[in-house]
């Protein structure tokens, strides 16, 4: 109880993350045990293996089953979870984790260093197909000197390593040799254990009584997978559901005004940006990129696509990240100047045809593309939209990089190295835009080897400035996350993880 309170209060007091909290009168009541929470979950869960799954939606459920060796607090600092404490050697080459005593897995076994070594080895084995595989690229050896200690030796310093382990999945500890069954029946050390999944319909979780941080209040969670947003909301209103995530954007204001419901919104759930393919000759000219930046009225676009449920931003850094460059201001819309820039670059009105690929996985992206295309038309650009299924978008844009313009969002990337190295370094894993900028490459490398936090911050701010000046991408906004619940649900303020995406039900209770 004590530890949980600590975490809960730090989340609630971080003004930067929270922008709105509905009726809070009920939060004052004393928690009670019992009851099954019926959650209207916005997405269909896929592969249940936490090491393999890369989707934020599936992780959202799995995070309640698993705990991680370390995690982050609301100030984005790495804090222990299944480890009681950790040390980093001065040369940055050795990480020592002292494991928490008496941590139980759902299969009844007690966590030892063997399980931790197994989990890390599984994560870095290419055969596993783990999404966080590359986090362990600089790891030389993983050792277990005794039952309660794990040492990771690096081949070279990697400043962001610990933060990366604290991220989604990379630090999740599973019982030794349980890898083969994780996909169907996940087993972890989290507050809830997996009961069953009726595929495409619901996932059932039950309280794990031996949870190291004290048992949860709820007897269980029934996560019903309801992908249609209006249907979720109706279910909440009719009392079929206790709790939903992702209120349809156009209804948030209306739901917030409803005295019968509790609503919580926060930013950011994710950030969104518009992208150019830098291998396409057209977009190698910074004037063209700036022109497209000038075409977009970010605030109006956000109102149009998100019905106001977001905050525009000139940089992708999390709002409460120390390395966020607060001096940047987005370019205001100026169609005339955009026309002039395009003309100067050799594309007078009516001569430029651009294809904008957008995925139906995010319907608000389809809406955004239609609005942008309309502005582009006013600037003399003929923009065609191709809406792609998620599979096609991943294949054409992400892997084959066969596109001219697109837009995308990213969840939970709060760690600056991951953000700027992966997304903007020439060899970065997320650099699907073929960006190759020598200055950014140099800065991102330098930040990786820089152990002094202040100096790293400085470097990252420089990177943000450069991305903005060159309009390498057009940053749009942080999108709000939202949850809503019946008045009978308590502890709503403990639900959202500091990464803005995961939902944690350990501190939630139901009034009888």
């Amino acid at each position, binding site marked *: 109880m004590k530890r949980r309170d600590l975490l809960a209060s730090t989340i609630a007091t971080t003004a930067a993350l929270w922008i709105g909290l509905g009726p809070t009168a009920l939060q004052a009541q004393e928690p009670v045990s019992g009851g099954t929470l019926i959650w209207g979950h916005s997405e269909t869960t896929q592969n249940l293996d936490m090491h393999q799954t890369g989707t934020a939606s599936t992780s959202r459920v799995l995070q309640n089953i698993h705990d991680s060796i370390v995690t982050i607090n609301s100030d984005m600092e790495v804090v222990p979870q299944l480890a009681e404490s950790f040390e980093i050697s001065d040369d940055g080459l050795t990480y020592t984790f002292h494991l928490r005593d008496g941590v139980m897995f759902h299969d009844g076994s007690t966590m030892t260093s063997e399980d931790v070594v197994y989990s890390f080895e599984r994560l870095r084995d290419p055969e596993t197909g783990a999404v966080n595989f590359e986090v362990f690229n600089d790891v030389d050896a993983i050792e277990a000197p005794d039952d309660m200690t794990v040492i990771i030796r690096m081949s070279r310093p990697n400043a962001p390593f610990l933060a990366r382990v604290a991220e989604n999945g990379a630090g999740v500890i599973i019982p030794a040799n349980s890898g083969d069954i994780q996909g169907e029946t996940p087993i972890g050390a989290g507050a809830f254990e997996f009961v069953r999944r009726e595929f495409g319909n619901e996932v059932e979780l039950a309280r794990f009584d031996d949870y190291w941080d004290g048992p949860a209040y709820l007897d269980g969670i029934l996560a019903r997978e309801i992908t249609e947003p209006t249907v979720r909301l109706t279910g909440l209103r009719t009392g079929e559901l206790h709790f939903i995530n992702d209120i349809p954007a156009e209804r948030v204001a209306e739901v917030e005004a409803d005295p019968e419901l509790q609503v919580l919104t926060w930013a950011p759930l994710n950030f969104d940006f518009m992208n150019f393919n830098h291998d396409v000759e057209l977009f190698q000219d910074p004037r063209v990129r700036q022109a497209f930046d000038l075409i977009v009225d970010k605030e109006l676009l956000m109102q149009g696509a998100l019905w106001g449920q977001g905050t525009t931003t000139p940089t992708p850094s999390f709002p409460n990240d120390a390395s966020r460059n607060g001096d940047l201001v987005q370019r205001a819309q100026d169609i005339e100047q955009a026309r002039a820039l395009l003309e100067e670059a050799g594309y007078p009105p009516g001569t430029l045809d651009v294809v904008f690929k957008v995925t139906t996985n995010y319907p608000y992206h389809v809406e955004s593309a239609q*609005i942008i295309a309309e502005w582009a038309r006013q600037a003399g650009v003929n923009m065609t939209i191709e809406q*792609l299924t998620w599979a096609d978008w991943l294949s054409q844009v992400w892997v084959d990089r066969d596109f001219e313009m697109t837009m995308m969002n990213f969840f939970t990337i709060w760690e600056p190295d991951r953000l700027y190295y992966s997304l903007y370094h020439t060899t970065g894993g997320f650099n699907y835009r073929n960006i190759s900028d020598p200055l950014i490459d140099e800065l991102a490398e330098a930040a990786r080897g820089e152990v002094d936090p202040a100096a790293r911050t400085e470097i990252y701010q420089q990177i943000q400035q450069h991305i903005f000046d060159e309009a390498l991408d057009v940053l749009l906004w942080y999108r709000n996350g939202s949850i809503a619940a019946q008045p009978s649900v308590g502890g709503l303020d403990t639900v959202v993880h500091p990464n803005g995406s995961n939902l944690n039900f350990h501190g939630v209770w139901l009034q009888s």
Partner: protein
Amino acid sequence: MRKFLSTKALIGLALVLLVVGIAVLAPLFIPPERATQMVMTARLQPPSFDFLLGTDQLGRDLFARVMLGAQTSLTIAILAVGMSIVLGLPLGIISGYYGGRVDNVLMRLIDALLSFPILLLALTISAVLGPNLQNTIIAIGVAFTPFLARIVRGEALRIVQMPYVEAARSAGTRDGLMIVRHILPNVMPALIVQATISLAFAVLAEAALSFLGLGTQPPQASWGLMIQASRQFLDLAPWTALVPGTALAITILGLNLLGDVLRDVLDPRAR
């Protein structure tokens, strides 16, 4: 019944002419940008003097969109059915005319293809090719082909057994001439009836594909797309679904009525 038939014919013809008229004339009177222009201050507005049929979630004029959508719908339907005729007619005639082993092989293949629901086939083809206007036409056209080939083959089989064809054959007429002179003209009535009914179904298929995101691409005005977008705002703005849905129903009703009448007139066996 004759009175009803003629009423039916009149209504059917009137509806089809109306839709064709809109498809042809709307683009002349309504500039294309009317369908994509957005007024952010007028989202999900009910019908009014400014917006005769109201606006959608992006503040676009539904009147302009539904009018321009007629062209999208009809163009795709006509080209898709045309394609299924180009592919299915020769297949059916060859199969029905030559019979025997050729017929056997072709019909086994077509029977197998007919086991795939048309919409599933079109959906899969569209997923393979990637969604855009041209591929939507191909997907619907190919999916319709087995069905059309089957009908043509049945007709050809019937005609081949007619006395005058046998007479011509014993007189030594060559196959090519025989097909052009005797088979093709006699297949025509059934083909025309089938094509008209297929048109109705193709309009529906285009709407269904667009509804599932695998057809016409936004911001182009397509009725299926409009219905798809309206889903989320049904209780807030039911007209966003009613407007394109009614347009779709009128078109399909007109084509079905016309198909019925043509069948009664042209197809002697159905009378």
